[in-house]
């Protein structure tokens, strides 16, 4: 049982100030803002705030960037509180590890698809505690036993007595905290697992949702930055005279991250950025092309590398195999390209700093800002915003963006508040990519068709190399994020080995929606398809026979049912299947495709079965599967960041870095597997199965195994 302390007076004030600062909670019309601006008076814990007007604020410790925690976490509180959904409001937590840490990571970070998973008991306990205190307040006021009091949809009642939460809030605030509030059993859930409308749909459908990019401060200036043209290049000198001649440009300054142009508006800042003439020292730069890196990485996989996992004797297995195959896979660098490029507003002065940002790692980002400005952490206030996508981009091991932001603030003319906005070009050509990776797989089947050997060697960069997390995350040359999904690969293997080479390049890598699972899933599910076929197995039955656990079998069975796997399909169409467990959630997908006019896969339909334990919000679970499929498909088809010899990135915007568009989006049918297990996440697990499912269907259609991504490069006429 999680015990929740009552916040200190200081924390309460911070919390209530925060809510008032957010006069427009997400998902609410401005008309509601006045209605909800009443000061919350009942704050039983760090997560629940009840105002006299019956509004219940849930303080969100996780960033909302589309994956749904604003609705999900609020649902958990509302459920135990027996609140009416219409009275629920949201507010963003400040940066505070003591109150708002992710219980899995131990710091206030959103990632690993675990926002709901780590909060499942915590947020319900927060709601249940508040409920118990409201009930006790009513019991004392009405002179009736607490046990006889009922709450339904925000109304506290006993016989003829009825009250809203607001009218009891002041009394409840004076009561002691309940020692161990009792949580509901799942059969009593009225919101969890039911259709609860997404809390942010109205604001996000009407242009009213406020992102960091939409924040303005009095006297604010705008800045744009020119980053080095090649990774690792160092600024030698720059000439800003052309930039400063542009009307509206105020100032230009060098900071460790590049050259910053300050201006009265964004347009002038962006024009100024283009007009900077900078000289760069390339002596320490990464000048290898991605073609060279692909060769180097693939070459490395010829030796076993650091051992990540081993079962049985792979070499003996390979020797004994009746048939064996080998494949080398190439995965490109990928940019996250969240729809809202990185940006934030920062205001410094009087030994403090205020930051408006939609960050994935509240505490880390504010530490980076504080450190760079030489301020104590407590003097930096985060005004957390919703974020326009992230996919991993809005946190970095070194919190580079927070550091850059603080440097920008230091040079701001007259220390004016500044909105620092990355152009799309900064975003796409600026690094922090899903690392370029190579896999070499060797496998074999015996005369009876059983898989008797599986050897997988992976060469990749580590996200943690050269960061303070290196010592913690890389052991004996092994970074576990690289082999995610490969060691326990979901299938029973007799002779199995996974090896890793952690290689270096000057390109900065970063976790990217589903992290290592993104490439391991592809290599495993496509190679498995080939081995199953080599052994004479049907591709679903073969998987079912090897599946290591019941949830995987369940997902495969369900997706086969809804897709009518094995049934007849249209002429010129083919189907493929893949199943992966990512961060505790199992997803199986079936794809139906044909050859498009451009010679590339045209995906018509995707069936998807997901087992995420209890689906707190089935509509959001479904949406995350749909979105994960589209995101994974787009990158499989076209996603690639490439560098020419000399190290220049070839993609700068959405013209070169192609994104999936609506006419390329297949129909998607999602089936959620009924479960009583505690919930696991859905933000990432929809992504890994789609690319291998498409590749498997393509191989069926054409006989061609695609080992180089994206498909636009891997499929040769």
């Amino acid at each position, binding site marked *: 049982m999680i015990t929740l302390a009552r916040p200190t007076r200081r924390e309460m004030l911070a919390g209530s100030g925060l809510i008032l600062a957010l006069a427009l909670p997400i998902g609410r019309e401005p008309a509601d803002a006045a209605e909800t601006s009443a000061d919350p008076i009942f704050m039983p814990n760090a997560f629940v705030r009840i105002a006299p007007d019956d509004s219940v604020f849930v303080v969100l410790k996780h960033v909302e*960037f*589309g*994956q*749904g925690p604003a609705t999900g976490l609020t649902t958990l509180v509302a459920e135990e509180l027996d609140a009416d959904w219409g009275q629920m409001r949201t507010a963003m937590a400040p940066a505070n590890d003591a109150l708002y840490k992710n219980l899995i990571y131990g710091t206030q970070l959103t990632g690993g698809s675990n926002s709901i998973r780590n909060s499942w008991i915590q947020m319900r306990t927060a709601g249940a505690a508040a409920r118990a205190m409201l009930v006790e307040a009513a019991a004392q006021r009405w002179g009736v036993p607490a046990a006889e009091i009922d709450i339904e949809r925000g109304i506290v009642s006993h016989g003829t007595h009825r009250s809203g939460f607001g009218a009891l809030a002041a009394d409840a605030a004076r009561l002691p905290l309940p020692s161990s509030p009792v949580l509901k059993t799942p059969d009593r859930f009225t919101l969890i697992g039911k259709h609860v*409308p*997404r809390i*942010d*749909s*109205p*604001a*996000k*459908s*009407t*242009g009213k*949702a*406020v*992102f960091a*990019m939409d924040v*303005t401060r009095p006297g604010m200036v*705008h800045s744009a930055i020119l980053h080095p043209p090649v990774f690792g290049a160092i600024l030698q000198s720059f000439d800003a005279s052309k930039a400063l001649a542009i*009307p*509206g440009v105020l100032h230009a300054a060098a900071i460790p991250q590049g050259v910053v142009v300050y201006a009265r*508006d*964004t*347009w*002038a800042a*962006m024009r100024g950025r283009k007009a900077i003439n900078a000289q760069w020292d390339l002596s320490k730069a990464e000048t290898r092309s991605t073609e060279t890196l692909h060769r180097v990485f693939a070459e490395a996989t010829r030796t076993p590398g650091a051992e990540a996992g081993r079962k049985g004797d792979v070499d003996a297995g390979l020797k004994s195999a009746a048939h064996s195959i080998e494949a080398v896979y190439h995965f490109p660098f990928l940019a996250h*390209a*969240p*729809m*809202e*490029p990185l940006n934030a507003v920062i205001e410094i002065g009087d030994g403090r700093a205020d930051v408006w940002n939609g960050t994935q790692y509240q505490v880390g980002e504010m530490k980076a800002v504080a450190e760079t400005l030489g301020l104590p952490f407590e003097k930096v206030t985060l005004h957390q915003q*919703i974020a*326009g*996508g*992230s*996919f991993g981009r809005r946190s970095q091991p070194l919190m580079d963006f927070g550091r850059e932001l603080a440097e920008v603030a230091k040079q701001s003319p007259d220390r004016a508040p500044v909105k620092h*906005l990355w152009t*799309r070009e900064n975003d796409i050509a600026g690094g922090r990519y899903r690392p370029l990776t190579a896999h070499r797989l060797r496998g074999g089947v015996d005369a009876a068709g059983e898989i008797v050997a599986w050897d997988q060697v992976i060469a990749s960069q580590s996200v943690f190399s050269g960061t303070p997390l290196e010592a913690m995350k890389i052991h004996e040359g092994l970074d576990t994020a690289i082999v995610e999904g490969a060691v326990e690969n979901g299938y029973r293997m007799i002779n199995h080995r996974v090896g890793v080479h952690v290689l270096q390049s000057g390109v900065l890598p970063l976790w990217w929606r589903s992290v290592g699972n993104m490439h391991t899933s592809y290599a495993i599910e496509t190679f498995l398809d080939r081995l199953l076929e080599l052994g004479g197995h049907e591709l679903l039955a073969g998987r079912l026979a090897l599946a290591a656990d019941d949830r995987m079998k369940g997902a495969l069975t369900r997706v086969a049912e809804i897709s009518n796997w094995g049934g007849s399909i249209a002429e010129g169409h083919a189907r493929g299947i893949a199943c992966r467990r990512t961060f505790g959630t199992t997803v199986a997908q079936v794809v139906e495709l044909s050859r498009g006019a451009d010679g590339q896969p045209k995906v018509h339909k995707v069936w998807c079965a997901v087992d995420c334990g209890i689906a707190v919000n089935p*509509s*959001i679970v479904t*949406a*995350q599967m*749909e*979105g994960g*499929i*589209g*995101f994974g*498909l*787009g990158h499989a088809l076209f996603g690639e960041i490439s560098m020419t010899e000399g190290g220049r990135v070839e993609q700068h*915007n*959405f*013209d070169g870095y192609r*994104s*999936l*568009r*609506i*006419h390329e*989006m297949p129909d*998607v049918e999602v089936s959620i597997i009924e479960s009583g297990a505690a919930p696991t996440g859905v933000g990432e697990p929809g992504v890994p199965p789609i690319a291998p499912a498409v590749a498997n269907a393509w191989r069926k259609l054409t006989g061609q195994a695609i080992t180089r991504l994206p498909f636009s490069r891997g499929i040769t006429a």
Partner: protein
Amino acid sequence: MTSKPIAFTLNGEAASFEGERDTPLLWALRDHFGLHGTKYGCGMAQCGACTVHIDGTPRRSCITPISSVSDQKVTTIEGVNGKVADTVIAEWIRHEVPQCGFCQSGQVMSAIGLLSTKPDAGDAEIDAAMRGNICRCATYVRIRQAIRDAAKALST
């Protein structure tokens, strides 16, 4: 600023802009008129996040110099109204289309533009009208469904 102000209609009201004439409408809206519903996503007519209506037609405000809207009617997500707009937005909310939401002003403006001229748009027309709007969250399944249902509601 020596040149004369650019006069146009913004969300039904007279507006005038005195800054640089080549300022893209997007930045004039966001930085000078304080209308933040219109978003920046690429600045080169690739993503549609900046879509507004100019004389009723969806246009990419990031490549539209403010000088070119002189005497024209500019409508942003903040000012769009009428039966088509209400229907589209209602379907957007009912289908819970937005994830991160950042592309959605542009999506909604493109969809309203489509159904204003073609209230009975079919799937091919939906694809053609919406393919200029990128959604990195890939909410396309629901975008399509919301437009289909809005078309249904509008044509009955």
